[in-house]
């Protein structure tokens, strides 16, 4: 993905300014009822202003300024949306470039345009070539550079048959070859969807946005009633109120601020996910992320660092620790697995100065039958492996009971015991342990405060799982978990009214991914998993599930904060405009002019200017989102109410006063 771009770059602002004008098209504008009403009112005021000029009315200059700011209010709203879209468009352009002019090599040797490929076609991709369509590897193994979509330049292995069979159009084979069966028709692929997503072309209003739009339209209706009845009330008082003034009051009261920023907030929310290298297939999924109650997390890679590590050597009675360490070290020297390497590291720590690989040594490789590995040095065979496997090799070993005792103790604490044997002699046990990631306990504590339950999913036995769960601070665990167990767990949580998020990569994860409310598929996963989830993590990092929840919450919080700000602004606007309108009817009402604004005209003008310029001033906040921190709902509410509720009450009093000083100083009214 393209690197972080700043909020306002020159080209984006210029393009957005142009788009703001294009978006005046009524058929676009009507999607946003409040802005649509503002535009209608602006058009009406324009007509009245032209009439005022034609009749040489003395108020034409004042009316002209109101008309100007009304249109600017609409344009600022359009501009906010265009800026948000503009950032996505820049990314879409770079994605499109990777897709341009792709050619495909069919098995029969024909070379066709990628757009002519059908689902089920099989193409061959050789070193240096770009994969022309999404598909499954059916033959071959290759290193593929997926930087075009993930931004990660380290190549990944793609091969048929397993969980790493999916390939994406636009990525490049950098070594070896593969044959790919096409699974997505031209224009329907992953890249195409990604382009549509970041561009916002296929953006639909999310359920929460629709509800909010209804509320804002409802408030507009209520203010229409409040303002629309004023001429009759004024007539009763023996006066009248000029239409431009009524218009100014109406537009400042209706929630133009949040309406102008609403779609920008939604687009920016999706964009933040994209920048985070997560693709949400719909805005609905992002909102659901904020509502998650239960997080299903894979143990390996999320809660523990991927591999187990040796933490202790436990010799049998009659065996010295030194002998066990030396033998275990020798048995592991040829073992390139992370576990094996960790044994050597621990041995060197405990007894420095161990010898190198003896010249005559032959590695004993791990097989799924023997389940042991080690080193053959002449007649001497040193092995290590699962306790039962080693015991099977040496049926009548002495000390078997003691070995069993030690290994059971280790298993009970959540560790994995590895037995070490020198020929027919049992030496002792290596204690391997899952290492819980640093800081994960604190993260789970945060999530708990936010009311989110964490569940560890692991293939380990319940004993081991319980121990790791206790160490990591996870709320619950699912041991010896099969895909069916996962699915059942999700269903159970959902029946209790909870929303569940999980991540997965394998084909057998697909049902659970589809069942969960937020299913994040790893990009390295199978095509089936990527189809089943409603988000795809391009970095294939399961830890990100936690951040995705945060991004979902931030999106909703930004929307709520700006709505609250917008509505509480109205109080100050009333105090600016009402005395200005009514002072001619009842001079006593001048006492409501608590801001001491210069004149009725300058008060009205200042209110409408404030109402317009607050939109672009809040665009950065709308795009970046409000500050999000993990906390319980009560303190989040208290904090945001203090900033956006109380701030929304106070800010316009100050803003309108300053604008009034400028307006009066410049003799604008």
């Amino acid at each position, binding site marked *: 993905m393209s690197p972080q771009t700043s909020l306002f770059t020159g080209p984006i602002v210029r393009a957005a300014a142009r788009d703001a004008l294009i978006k005046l098209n009524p058929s676009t504008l009507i999607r946003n009822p409040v802005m649509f009403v503002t535009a209608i009112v602006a058009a009406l005021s324009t007509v009245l202003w032209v009439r005022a000029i034609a009749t040489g009315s003395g108020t034409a200059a004042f009316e002209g300024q109101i008309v100007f700011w009304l249109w600017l209010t609409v344009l600022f709203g359009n501009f906010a949306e265009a800026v948000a879209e503009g950032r996505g468009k820049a990314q879409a352009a770079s994605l499109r470039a990777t897709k341009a002019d792709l050619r495909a090599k069919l098995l029969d040797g024909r070379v066709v345009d990628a757009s002519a490929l059908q689902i089920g076609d099989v193409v061959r991709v050789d070193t240096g070539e770009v994969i022309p369509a999404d598909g499954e590897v059916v033959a071959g193994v290759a290193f593929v550079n997926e930087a075009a979509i993930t931004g990660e330049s380290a190549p990944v292995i793609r091969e048929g048959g397993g969980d790493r069979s999916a390939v994406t159009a636009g990525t490049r084979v950098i070594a070896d070859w593969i044959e790919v069966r096409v699974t997505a028709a031209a224009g329907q692929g992953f890249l195409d969807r990604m382009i549509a997503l970041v561009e916002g072309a296929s953006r639909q209003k999310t359920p929460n946005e629709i509800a909010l739009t209804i509320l804002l339209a409802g408030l507009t209706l209520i203010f229409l009633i409040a303002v629309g009845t004023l001429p*009759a009330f004024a007539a009763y008082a023996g006066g009248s109120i000029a239409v431009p003034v009524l218009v100014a009051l109406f537009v400042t009261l209706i929630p133009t601020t949040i309406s102008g920023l609403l779609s920008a907030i939604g687009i920016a929310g999706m964009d933040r996910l994209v920048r985070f290298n997560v693709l949400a297939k719909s805005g609905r999924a992002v909102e659901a992320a904020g509502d998650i109650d239960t997080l299903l997390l894979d143990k390996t890679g999320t809660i523990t660092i991927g591999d187990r590590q040796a933490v202790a050597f436990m010799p049998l009675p009659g065996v010295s620790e030194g002998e066990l360490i030396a033998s275990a070290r020798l048995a592991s020297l040829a073992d390139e697995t992370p576990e094996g390497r960790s044994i050597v590291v621990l041995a060197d720590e405990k007894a420095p100065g161990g010898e190198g690989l003896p010249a005559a040594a032959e590695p004993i490789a791990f097989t799924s039958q023997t389940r042991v590995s080690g080193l053959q040095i002449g007649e001497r065979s040193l092995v290590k492996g699962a306790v039962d496997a080693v015991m099977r090799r040496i049926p009548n070993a002495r000390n078997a009971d003691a070995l069993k005792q030690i290994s059971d103790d280790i298993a009970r604490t959540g560790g994995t015991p590895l037995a070490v044997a020198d020929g027919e002699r049992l030496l002792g046990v290596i204690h391997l342990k899952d290492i819980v990631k640093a800081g994960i306990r604190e993260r789970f504590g945060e999530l708990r405060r936010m009311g989110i339950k964490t569940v560890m999913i692991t293939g380990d036995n319940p004993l081991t799982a319980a121990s790791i769960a206790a160490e990591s601070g996870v709320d619950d665990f699912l041991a010896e978990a099969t895909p069916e167990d996962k699915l059942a767990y999700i269903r159970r949580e959902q029946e209790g009214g909870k929303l569940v998020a999980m991540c997965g990569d394998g084909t057998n994860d697909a049902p659970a991914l589809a069942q969960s409310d937020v299913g994040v598929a790893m990009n390295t996963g199978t095509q089936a998993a990527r189809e089943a989830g409603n988000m795809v993590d391009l970095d294939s990092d399961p830890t990100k599930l936690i951040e995705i929840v945060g991004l979902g*919450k931030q999106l909703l919080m930004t929307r709520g904060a700006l709505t609250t700000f917008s509505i509480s602004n109205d109080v100050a606007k009333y105090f600016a405009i009402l005395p200005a309108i009514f002072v001619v*009817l009842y001079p006593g*009402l001048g006492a409501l002019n608590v801001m001491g604004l210069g004149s009725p005209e300058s008060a009205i003008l200042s209110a409408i200017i404030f109402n317009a310029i607050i939109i672009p001033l809040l665009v950065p906040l709308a795009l970046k989102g409000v500050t999000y921190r993990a906390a319980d709902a009560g303190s989040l509410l208290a904090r945001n109410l203090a900033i956006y509720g109380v701030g929304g009450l106070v800010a316009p009093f100050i803003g309108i006063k300053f604008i009034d000083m400028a307006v009066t100083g410049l003799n604008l009214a």
Partner: protein
Amino acid sequence: MTFAGWTLIFVFIALIIALAKPSGALLFRLYDSRPLPLEAGLFRLAGTGPREQSWVGYAVAVLAFNIAGIALLFAILKLQGGLPLNPQGFEGVESWLAFNTAVSFVTNTNWQNYGGETTLSHFSQMVGLTVQNFLSAATGIAVAFAFIRAFARSSVATLGNFWVDMTRVTLYLLLPACAILTVVYVAMGVPQTLAASVTATTVEGTQQVIALGPVASQLAIKMLGTNGGGFFNVNSAHPFENPTALANFLQMLSIFVLGAGLTLTFGKAVGNLRQGWTILAAMLGLFLIGVTVTYWAEAAGNPIHQALGIAGGNMEGKEVRFGIAATALFAVVTTAASCGAVIGMHDSFMPLGGLVTMFNMQLGEVIVGGVGAGFYGILIYAILAVFIAGLMVGRTPEYIGKKIEAREMKLAVIAIAVLPLFILGLTALASVTEAGLAGPLAGGPHGFSEILYAYSSAVGNNGSAFGGLTGNTPFYNITLAIGMFVGRFGVILPALAIAGGLVAKRRQPEGPGSFPTTGALWVGLLAAIILIVGGLTFLPALALGPIADHFQVAAGMLL
């Protein structure tokens, strides 16, 4: 303001808090589906069983029952000349007035464009009005029950049965309670007789005819059912309708007791009493603000009078027996609770005191409110508040575990917009038409306040009058009746529709991540949303009425 005055106010609030729990528990027993004694036989007799209704079924039953009630009451009023119990020999009531009165009593408004003792027969009062006083109160509580079920139940389609709820409330609560209250009022000196009047010789030696009638029985339900329609034209300011200070206090308590109790019925039904206490706290907080402003304004007195050497607070339009504190308290109670009974003339309050009474009604009678109506009214505001502020905790807004989505928002907006549309719309109509302008007694902003108050009272289903306005004209009879009808059913229908949607939703369990709808923060937030949404809507109109009035009086101007 006096120490005795504040003591009265705080003792009142403390007693309401103390009574809320037993009242809520009693209402919960009626709300609950466990059968009550004798009711099975009654339902068999009526041919209805406790068959559950969907929200549509419930709404149809409410509408059908109430429209039939309007027709029946209209017929009684038209035909009272030929009906029994008519010792004064009153003729049938004029059609528009009968229409207005029928809508008024069925909608729990009890706006009275007639003088009770000079227009209506005992039959009309007892069989016509008093029956509707019971049934309109029962309707309100029944709808509140249905609304509570929307939150208490999870993933079901039905809201209970209107006929069952209504029967239970009438038979097991309102009738026995009012029988007891009637006896208590009689003991305090309220008349209960079928005689028309007595004739007395006054100190000056002239003959005075003093109207009598079955006052105590109507008084009991008028307060308990927040109806407010007095037997006498001057309502509870009449010595026979409010003989002692204790009777006055009892009347105020009975206005609030059921509305306050319903909040705890709700808390009990949703399994968290704190949810109920929180709603009650928001109501009483707003109430205390209103009382403080009114009492302060009244006690401070009228600067114009004071310039003429009349010291002290504003005693104009008040019963000297009750004085400033009790009258201010009563005025705020009766307008906050959509009761509408009065012991003083709100028209003669200081402008800011009058503003509070008007604003209480414009908020939709949610500060304790009419029995039932106040509860579902404030819950609609709660839904709005949860939606606006709930997003700020980063979750899809939910209330009592029910997600608030587009449908709820649409209906809540309708229920809330009904009030300004009809209050301001009808006020605007009256301000520019000759028929409307003929109504107010005063000119200037005070005259405007009279009109605004009338429609606020009608649409809010309060029924109190500002005084001064001549309402018994075809224009006002019709427009006020429209306002009362829409103000009642224009909220009940969306409320039941919201309930129908919510009851079908699964109830999410509450956790630390849920939006907190208990505690001080939420009380403040709910109160602020009610004040801001209500305030922003009505501030322009109020500025031209009581607020302009206030500044004129402060400047020593007389109209």
